[in-house]
């Protein structure tokens, strides 16, 4: 589906240049689910931004279905790749109804029968027609995230880029959204790159996981390896230990990997 090779992203220039992504390579096969985990500043979100063309790529190559991406992302790209962001409050236009948000996506891509598509996608994300003419402020955080997912899926993409899609939600709502994504993946054979700081969430959602630190992939593992505690790199092992809740003894052993 997508191959990323030697990706580098540098923000700013000269003495203020900051290399946010410093040589990242991975591939996601068609129908594959890939997770990027790391702490803040590790470059995980920047990888997604680089894929959609929102970050300056200074080196490396991204191939989508075997074809290298140029500097501009065309309509074909946006039909194939869609993104869902973390903050369901910030990513929906406050003065557009759910219907308008979804109709706009259809209009941009010239999709036929927008009305039927809107009704079907609302059903699929578990909202139903009653939500069609609501404004974002009339929705809960979880409902907004369902709208954001509907907006991404209405153009029938092959690859979803999910940037911390449940980090702003309560755990009970998180479980509902994660289940919804898994259902949609099963129904449509989607691929995704799922970015999160939460190891357990990524392990739940992805078959393959890359752990990032300082703009590099420290280690790649399968979800099974993660569950069996079979990580090799000290950084990933520390991240895993810190994810298991508070432990005074573990806290005393933490090392700074900057």
């Amino acid at each position, binding site marked *: 589906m997508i191959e990323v090779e030697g990706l580098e992203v540098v923000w700013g220039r000269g003495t203020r240049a900051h290399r946010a992504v410093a040589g990242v390579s991975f591939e996601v096969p068609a129908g594959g689910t890939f997770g990027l985990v790391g702490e803040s500043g590790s470059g995980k979100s920047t990888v997604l931004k680089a894929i959609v063309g929102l970050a300056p790529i200074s080196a490396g190559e991204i191939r989508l279905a075997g074809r290298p991406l140029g500097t501009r992302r065309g309509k074909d790209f946006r039909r194939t790749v869609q993104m869902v962001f973390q903050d369901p409050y910030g990513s929906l236009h406050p003065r557009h109804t759910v219907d308008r948000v979804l109709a706009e996506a259809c209009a941009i891509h010239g999709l036929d029968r927008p009305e039927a598509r809107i009704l079907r996608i609302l059903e699929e994300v578990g909202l139903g027609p009653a939500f069609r003419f609501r404004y974002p402020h009339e929705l809960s955080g979880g409902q907004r995230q369902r709208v954001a997912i509907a907006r991404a899926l209405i153009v029938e993409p092959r690859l979803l880029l999910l940037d911390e899609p449940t980090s702003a939600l*309560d755990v009970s709502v998180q479980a509902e959204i994660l289940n919804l994504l898994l259902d949609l993946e099963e129904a449509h054979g989607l691929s995704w790159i799922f970015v999160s700081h939460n190891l357990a969430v990524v*392990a739940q959602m992805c078959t393959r996981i890359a752990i990032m630190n300082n703009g590099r992939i420290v280690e790649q593992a399968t979800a099974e390896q993660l569950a069996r505690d079979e990580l090799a790199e000290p950084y990933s092992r520390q991240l895993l230990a810190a994810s298991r809740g508070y432990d005074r003894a573990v806290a005393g052993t933490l090392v700074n990997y900057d």
Partner: protein
Amino acid sequence: MAEPSARARTELSRLTGAALHPLVEVADLRVRFPTHRGPIEAVRGVSFTMGAERLGIVGESGSGKSTVGRALLGLVPPPGEVTAERLVVDGIDVPRAGPRTLRELRGGRASMVLQDPKFSLNPVMRVGVQIVEAVRRHRRIGRREARERAMAMLEAVRIREPARVFRAFPHELSGGMGQRVMIAMMLVAEPRLLIADEPTSALDVTVQMQVLAILDDLVAARGMGLVFISHDLELVASFCDRVLVMYDGRIVETCRARELAAARHPYTRGLLGCLPRLDTPARRLPTLRRDPAWTARR
């Protein structure tokens, strides 16, 4: 309750090393916010007592957990109305205390750490000056001694270069560093109670662990009480001694933190169930079925 006697009792309990009265006593606490659709009751009859322990309050957004924390310091913003049969913090009757007593309570006897240091620190004041202000506001000591205490406190929260951080402005600090500074500022006046509302939720897991270790050590060394408010059940279970689980403004369950996994209330069990698990992944997560009876009871 008269002020001097409260102070004397605090002193006495310090001397004997044991609390003669509970640090916090809350009975039938209610907090109401008027809205144009009628009043909303954010807290509906909460009762608990605590001593020098680490007490966790967990619940989802809107459960009223933060409002309870604020009510303890008389910080529920108007037009919120607070009523309680009893709301006593370190001997001070909070709802009936005057502004002067409240000023003594806040920061002096009990203080509060919030989620994001960016919004809690004054952006145009050097960090050290803010800590010195906090200690001098509550303890009659000279400038030099206050400065020494502030520096010692920065060291106590394991800041490697306290002198540099002392002179820094908040924007020059990372999130973890900012939260350490907040903890230093809140503990410099040696309060007996610290209320921490999601103190580590904005931090990376490893930094969170380090900040919690600092809190853990300071609370143990000083025999303080800690109210730890969080949405993160697993974190609370591993960090606190006792846990109150809140749902819709009420405490639905109280249990020892180590025994949270054996919680009985369906809400607590449901919340624990819907967390993804690293060791035993399931294809689908159990979701929480909310029972209207949880709200109606009592």
